């Protein structure tokens, strides 16, 4: 082949500049956002290795001291336990309640169900702190309406958030009141997007309601349920507002979750170096849980689409 031909081929093969940079331009916004997300994250890791404090004019590298201090303190293990218990229990109750109410609402199509769909969303429109203050008044042993209700059944001065035995129950109850509507909305949307033909076939074959639920509704609804689970569990593990507004983490350390402990150490005691490891552990817990749920959601989606057994 002559040199001229070689040159002509290379000219033909030359990719225009615009085409070459296009993939980078497409990725650029995502890259910038990723950098924006990663910078504070990397800074947080760095600060966790320092004695950074509002009380000190400068900060210095202290190695793994903050991490060792955290892992050897009872505060940390208590906070981890509180966060996990709060996250798992509140999300489980909300998922069960949300699924149940959504199925009932989906099976009804009258004026009442339409009104209920509007009313059930109300708690989502209230700031969690405001909702907590309202509940605090409702649970008050002297003026609270719940106390009056309990009195009918012979129960007096129920301690609610004031006792370590019932404090977790109380904050979970408020969380359920606020967030169950979120699950209802997501599950309702999932139920309404299900194809009708499998249900019609099952009806012809004489399948009862339970058979339909277990073999049709649940498998096809699983992707939506996993999405709801993902969002609620992530938020519940990070919960701060309800606990802080109701008890500030008390009585004692009963409700000192990872978020509250980090807040207390960082903003009240002004020791950010010591506070950040708590937040990083929380991130790790959420990350592990989220990855697992996303994997389950993908599998469920494939199953629902008939791509996998």
């Amino acid at each position, binding site marked *: 082949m002559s040199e001229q031909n070689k040159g002509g081929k290379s000219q033909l093969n030359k990719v225009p500049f615009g085409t070459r940079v296009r993939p980078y331009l497409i990725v650029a916004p995502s890259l910038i956002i990723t950098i924006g997300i990663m910078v504070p994250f990397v800074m947080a890791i760095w600060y966790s290795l320092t004695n950074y404090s*509002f009380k000190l004019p400068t900060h210095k590298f202290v190695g793994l001291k903050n991490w060792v201090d955290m892992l050897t303190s009872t505060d940390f293990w208590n906070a981890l336990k509180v966060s996990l218990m709060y996250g798992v229990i509140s999300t489980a109750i909300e998922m069960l309640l949300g699924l149940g109410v959504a199925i009932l609402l989906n099976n009804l199509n009258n004026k009442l169900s339409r009104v209920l769909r509007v009313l059930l969303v109300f708690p989502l429109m209230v700031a969690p702190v405001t909702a907590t203050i309202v509940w605090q008044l409702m649970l008050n*042993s*002297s003026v609270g309406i719940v106390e009056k209700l309990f009195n009918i059944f012979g129960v*007096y*001065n129920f301690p609610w958030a004031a006792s370590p035995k019932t404090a977790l129950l109380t904050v979970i109850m408020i969380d359920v009141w606020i967030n169950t509507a979120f699950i209802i909305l997501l599950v309702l949307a999932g139920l309404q997007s299900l194809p009708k033909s499998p249900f019609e076939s099952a009806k012809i074959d004489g399948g009862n309601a339970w058979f339909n639920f277990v073999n049709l509704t649940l498998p096809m609804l699983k992707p939506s349920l996993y999405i709801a689970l993902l969002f609620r569990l992530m938020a519940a593990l990070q919960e701060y507002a309800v606990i802080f507004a109701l008890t500030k983490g008390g*009585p004692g350390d009963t409700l000192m979750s990872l978020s509250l402990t980090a807040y207390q150490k960082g*903003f009240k005691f*002004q020791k950010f170096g010591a506070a950040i490891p708590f937040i990083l552990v929380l991130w790790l817990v959420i990350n592990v849980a989220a990855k697992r749920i996303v994997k389950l959601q993908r599998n469920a989606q494939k199953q629902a689409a008939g791509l996998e057994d």
Partner: protein
Amino acid sequence: MKKAVAMLLAGLMVASSLTVTVPAAEEEFDWKKFDGEEITVLFSEHTYADAVEAKLDEFTEKTGIKVNYSSMPEGNYFEKLNVELSSHSGSIDVFMTGAYQSWEYATAGNLEPLENFIDTDLTSPEWKYDDFIPAVINALKWDLVPGHPVGEGSQWALPMGWEVNILTYNKRVLEEKGLPVPETAEQLLEDAKALQEFNGTGSYGLAVRGLPDWGTIHPAYMSLYSTWGAKDFEIEDGKLVSKVNSPEAVAMTEYWVDLVKNGGAPQWATYGWEMCGADLGAGKAAMMWDADRGGYTQNVEGASAEAGNFAFGMVPYPESAGKTADDMRSNLWVWSMAMNADSAKKDAAWYFMQYFTSPEFMLWSGTEAACTDTPRTSVLESEEYKNSVASAEGYYEAFSKVSENASIFFTAQPYFTETTTEWAKTLQKLVTTDEYASVQDAMDELKEVMDEMVSDLEVE
């Protein structure tokens, strides 16, 4: 003719004396020196802040200084302030603080020492530093050495109002139940126990704070703790050493746990000052031991269901511990205003501070804006002030009497928030759990935690 000349001379003398004294000095002071400047002020929502806000326009009219004013609820105020101050941006020029918090801010270099302005030509002769009640103004002075008492060193803030912690009681309820007004700690315990459920389910004898933070320790608890003769820290071998497990401290805390368990609110562990005041006003609590103004504001006509029924006692002293009325101690809280060391407009900020701590402003706020805890002697002794608080039975007497022995009984040190938070958590555990075999065990453990917290402080 002689008579006319004499009258003329007399007239001239009177006129000249008028021009030489106060008004002339005031006229000479240049309030417009910083005309056109703009400062930023951050306050916690409070009666004292409301009084300042009401007079901002008058301040701007007099000085030409524009004020960017904002306030936020007390619950998160200090956290917000911590972030602003630590940024060293000078975004806030003047802010509200308390004496305890000023120890932390001054140590971190966030506060401007005010002696740089007091007694300079930037201060109006009418302002009168010496008119502040000594215990109150001294509470805001400190030499930055942990363990050293307040009252020496730089002036870190100026008082807006101060609070002593005394008993407020519902005289109607006590009369109906035939109970004496408690003067001793023992009587208080008996009354509080007898008053449980006095007004149906959930009603109780004594409202005191119980949240897990410093706010639970500093009012009634610290007042009785000091009256009992206990101390939080002492200096030993150049170090601060916690004394919360001393015999006096343990005896007092045993009493306190009994009082809260058997005479306090069923949901005590969730109670801040707002809930205490609300229960007292609603007739759900028969007594409250907290800041004097908490009871005072509930007693103002129309402010609460029980308004008009409240009277004011003193600090109940423990007779069983050999104490008398002379041993009464009330821990002080001083709402104050301080200047950011990073402010770029310190002179204009000082004009703001002196205007809103002046005798003239404080007479107005003390008599017309519900700021009854005046830090100025001239206001406290004025007839206008006495008349304005006359309707609150026993208030003036209690405030005046308790003020004699009121002080800050905490040891000044920069880890105040940490140590008192841990202290409050221990109290919560003692009241709400069986975690400790005894109060002594709990206080021994607390002492170790507090010693560790302050271990890096060098006293000398």
